[in-house]
């Protein structure tokens, strides 16, 4: 019984296990680094907001912006913060507050959706578009 208890505590890890973990980790880190280098060459990123599918604002993703977006009927607000490629909804008065809970988005293609206010905030690549500013 004592011997059994001893063998339960000992880990069976072998050299090949550690080698495998190292190879996989190095591969993962290498791929992430390549992604970082590539990101620098990509075209400029924009943060765009759409209300009912219509563009309502556009800022460069590396800007420092804090803006309040009103719903078309002026009954609701979302406070959107853009801070050096980090985008999030800081506060909102929508039920559920899913847009606030979504947290920070940073990458092209990611989006924050506020369903009650029918607002979509998305990071997009490519050229700037003309947005009707009010």
């Amino acid at each position: 019984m004592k011997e059994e208890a001893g063998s339960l505590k000992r880990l069976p890890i072998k050299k090949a296990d550690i080698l495998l973990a190292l190879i996989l980790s190095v591969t993962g880190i290498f791929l992430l680094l390549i992604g970082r280098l590539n990101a620098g060459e990509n075209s400029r990123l924009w943060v765009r907001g759409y209300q009912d599918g219509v563009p309502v604002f556009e800022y460069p993703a590396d800007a420092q912006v804090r803006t309040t977006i009103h719903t078309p009927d002026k009954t609701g607000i979302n406070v959107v913060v853009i801070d050096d490629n980090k985008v999030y909804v800081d506060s909102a008065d929508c039920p559920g507050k899913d847009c606030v809970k979504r947290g920070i988005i940073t990458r092209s293609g990611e989006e924050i959706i506020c369903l009650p206010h029918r607002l979509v905030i998305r990071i997009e690549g490519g050229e700037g578009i003309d947005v009707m500013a009010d």
Partner: protein
Amino acid sequence: MKMNSGYIAECGLLLALAVIAAYVEMLIPVDLMLPGIKAGLANCVILFILYRMGPLQAMMISLLRTMIMAFAFTSPAVLIYSFSGALISIIIMTALSKSKAFSVYGVSMAGGVSHNITQLIAASYFMLSSGSSLSDLLTYYLPILIFSGIAAGIFNAIIADILIKRIPQKKDRIKEDKCTHI
């Protein structure tokens, strides 16, 4: 392989256990950002079956589990991801467990990572056609899935290692059973 009633009962019991483990995993909100892709924390049951019953049983139970999960709890639409992931990972885990160089930890890590990479490959057609770029797949999703595969692999190995040590080989167990029954 003997197909006696005890054997069938044991397979059914382990299949139920594998489904429950996968169901519990489903309840944990681990978001890997990809629809239908799971970290595979329930793989510890499959590892145990691989070591204690054999590769054929492990493969059978693993594949049956993905089908039961897809039809009962998630969606048949994600079956292609989970099924291919389960199939490739059990093949790789069987191969590595046959070579004596790896412990259950290496086998489990290889299973976790291959499970995730296979799911990414299966999902890549959908992802590429819905706007993801190939470089996103390779330099963002792939490394995340590699790291989560390693983490899930270590987690599963810890659980499976305990199970394997505490529950003896099947033939020894049958002898014990016979002794107690007579």
